[in-house]
């Protein structure tokens, strides 16, 4: 699709084109950065505490910190950034603003209010003056119980994101009226398909919160079925990982080719990938529950099969994105079988950050395949391996792509030049190196059985037995990695803050994204039939979940066999500890 017509907007930044939208996007980005700053710092606290390098919090408070780290980074940081990027993508690619900017502000503010409720209730776990608690970890299923404010906050945040989706759809509908015969522009297509599976998967968690957890926390019902709330959480919990990932994929598809000096290899392939994610993101959640005794092996096997199919779109992405980069490199004069790699713009922090993020994602592909296998999952389940895995995926593939993207987006939405490209380039490298240390050590720790979510994994009368290396060496790598990551985080935030103090610049690049070698006209129109794909996605969910849910309810009851809640005690009762020790000791 060679577009010859030069649009009048070609040399303008996003701020020039859409000043009102740029403000909301900027606010969303800053909300996201704030979550990143606090959450990242808490990550350092955890890493130093676990490895016993530095312990300045009470071990009982570790779980409050862990909850805050998980929620702030995996939910708040990622989703605020996502709504910013998607709003940019929809408006830029449709070349029109949102229908009503007040509506856009409304959903943003709703998400902020939700976040504050959630944040304050978690903080209550360590601040006595706040009569709340939410030490439920970011997975928040029963029997751990939080203060009602925590659940209300989550609901507001999610409903806010639903309204954001509605905003993108409205904008698209308005555009379609004016352009009835056009294909959906690729960035909008990506935002809409992602929104659709977000609606589908968040239904599970909405059900879990509104019907079970919130009434239970309010004391309206006095028991829940923990396995049911777990299953409903994971019904959402796998799809949410793709929700984080899709904006990163969008960046890889529409920004990386441009930054490399080339074009997206194939628009149709990109559409196929996003359709596959719409279809398969949700009916796989049970792969997080391979070790749950209450679910029959057969259902787990179905989830595993779906999961393996889900590898397909990611492998397609690897091919398409790398081929687009190669195209750019060759247009820039690169030659040879692999020599073209040298022609890529490695001095550009936006490019390098995203490319390194993609490289780490490839490594995560391996540990993900291990996680996904039903039998070999037993080896790594709930160990630190899993934490190592998702610091490669959400913690780097997503987080580093977002940070790199920010180096391009913040100038676009503020009209100010990035304070330092040098610092930015250093930052993405330090993050990469830090994560290499931390994540590889976590993976290895998991292999010899070191558990995740444990304040003090040092046991009396028992020593871990690594096949290679020592526990001390692994701890040192985790601590060093965590320090490097925190340094990288500080470099990022410093650059962002100083950028916002910069003067307005008029030498900024125009707001554009990559063209395509093979455009939408090469793909069947049915790919754009969102109703069809949504219908199939719903059918797959019904097929994948009806029987397991029915059998969970049948064996455990809708509200469970009289399960009361646990609120992680601030002071541990020694009698209770003894009792639980007796339970596990033969």
């Amino acid at each position: 699709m060679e577009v010859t017509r030069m649009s009048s907007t070609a040399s303008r930044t996003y701020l020039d084109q859409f000043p009102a939208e740029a403000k909301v996007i900027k606010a969303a980005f800053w909300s996201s950065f704030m979550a990143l700053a606090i959450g990242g710092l808490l990550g350092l606290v955890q890493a130093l505490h676990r490895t016993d390098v530095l312990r300045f919090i009470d071990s009982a408070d570790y779980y409050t910190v862990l909850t805050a780290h998980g929620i702030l980074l995996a939910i708040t940081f990622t989703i605020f950034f996502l709504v910013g990027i998607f709003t940019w993508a929809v408006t830029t690619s449709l070349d029109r603003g949102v229908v009503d900017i007040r509506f856009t502000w409304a959903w943003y503010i709703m998400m902020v209010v939700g976040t504050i409720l959630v944040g304050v209730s978690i903080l209550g776990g360590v601040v006595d003056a706040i009569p709340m608690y939410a030490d439920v970890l970011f997975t928040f299923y029963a029997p751990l119980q939080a203060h009602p404010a925590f659940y209300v906050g989550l609901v507001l945040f999610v409903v806010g994101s639903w309204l954001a989706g509605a905003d993108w759809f409205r904008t698209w509908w308005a555009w379609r009226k004016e352009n009835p015969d056009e294909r959906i522009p690729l960035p909008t297509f990506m935002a809409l398909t992602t929104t659709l599976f977000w609606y589908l998967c968040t239904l599970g968690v909405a059900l879990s919160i509104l019907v079970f957890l919130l009434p239970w926390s309010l004391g309206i019902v006095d028991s829940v079925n923990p396995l049911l709330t777990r299953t409903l959480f994971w019904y959402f919990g796998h799809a949410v990982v793709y929700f984080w990932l899709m904006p990163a994929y969008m960046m890889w598809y529409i920004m990386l080719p441009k930054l490399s000096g080339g074009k997206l290899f194939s628009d149709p392939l990109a559409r196929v990938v996003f359709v596959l994610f719409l279809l398969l993101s949700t009916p796989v959640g049970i792969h997080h529950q391979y070790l749950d005794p209450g679910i029959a092996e057969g259902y787990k096997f179905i989830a595993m099969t779906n999961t393996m199919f889900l590898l397909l779109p990611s492998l397609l992405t690897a091919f398409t994105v790398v081929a687009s980069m190669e195209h750019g490199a060759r247009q820039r004069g690169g030659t040879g079988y692999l020599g073209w790699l040298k022609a890529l713009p490695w001095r550009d922090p936006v490019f390098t950050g995203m490319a390194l993020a993609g490289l780490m994602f490839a490594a995560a592909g391996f540990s993900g395949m291990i996680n996904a296998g039903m039998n070999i999952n037993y080896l790594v389940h709930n160990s630190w391996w899993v934490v190592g895995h998702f610091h490669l995926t959400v913690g780097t593939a997503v987080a580093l792509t977002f940070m790199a993207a920010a180096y391009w987006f913040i100038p676009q939405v503020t009209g100010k030049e990035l304070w330092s490209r040098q610092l930015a380039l250093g930052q993405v490298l330090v993050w990469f190196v830090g994560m290499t240390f931390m994540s590889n050590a976590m993976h290895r720790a998991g292999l010899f059985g070191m558990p995740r979510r444990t304040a003090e994994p040092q046991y009396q009368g028992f020593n871990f037995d690594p096949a290679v290396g020592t526990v001390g060496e692994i701890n040192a790598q985790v601590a060093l990695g965590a320090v490097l990551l925190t340094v990288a985080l500080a470099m990022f935030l410093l650059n962002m803050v100083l950028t916002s103090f910069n003067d307005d610049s008029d030498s900024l690049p125009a707001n554009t994204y990559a063209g395509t070698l093979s455009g939408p006209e090469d793909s069947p129109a049915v790919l754009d039939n969102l109703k069809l794909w949504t219908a199939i996605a719903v059918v797959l969910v019904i097929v994948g979940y009806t029987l397991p849910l029915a059998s969970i309810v049948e064996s455990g009851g809708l509200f469970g066999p009289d399960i009361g809640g646990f609120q992680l005690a601030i002071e541990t009762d020694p009698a209770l500890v003894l009792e639980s020790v007796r339970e596990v000791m033969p």
Partner: protein
Amino acid sequence: MASATEQRETDQVREIGHEEYDPVGTAILIGIYFLILVLLWLFMYFVEFLGNGPTVVGALLTVVGLA
């Protein structure tokens, strides 16, 4: 309609169209990646056996000398 798609390239020394472009480098990289995956998979089985004694295929252990 794609008015916002990139039109010009600053550092571009040649234009390569869809027909003439053949992503061999990509094929090689993906090939290397698959090779790494296969090797890691094999390695993973060793880790499993090394750590936990005979699990699924006890006989294989003696063959590869790990038991």
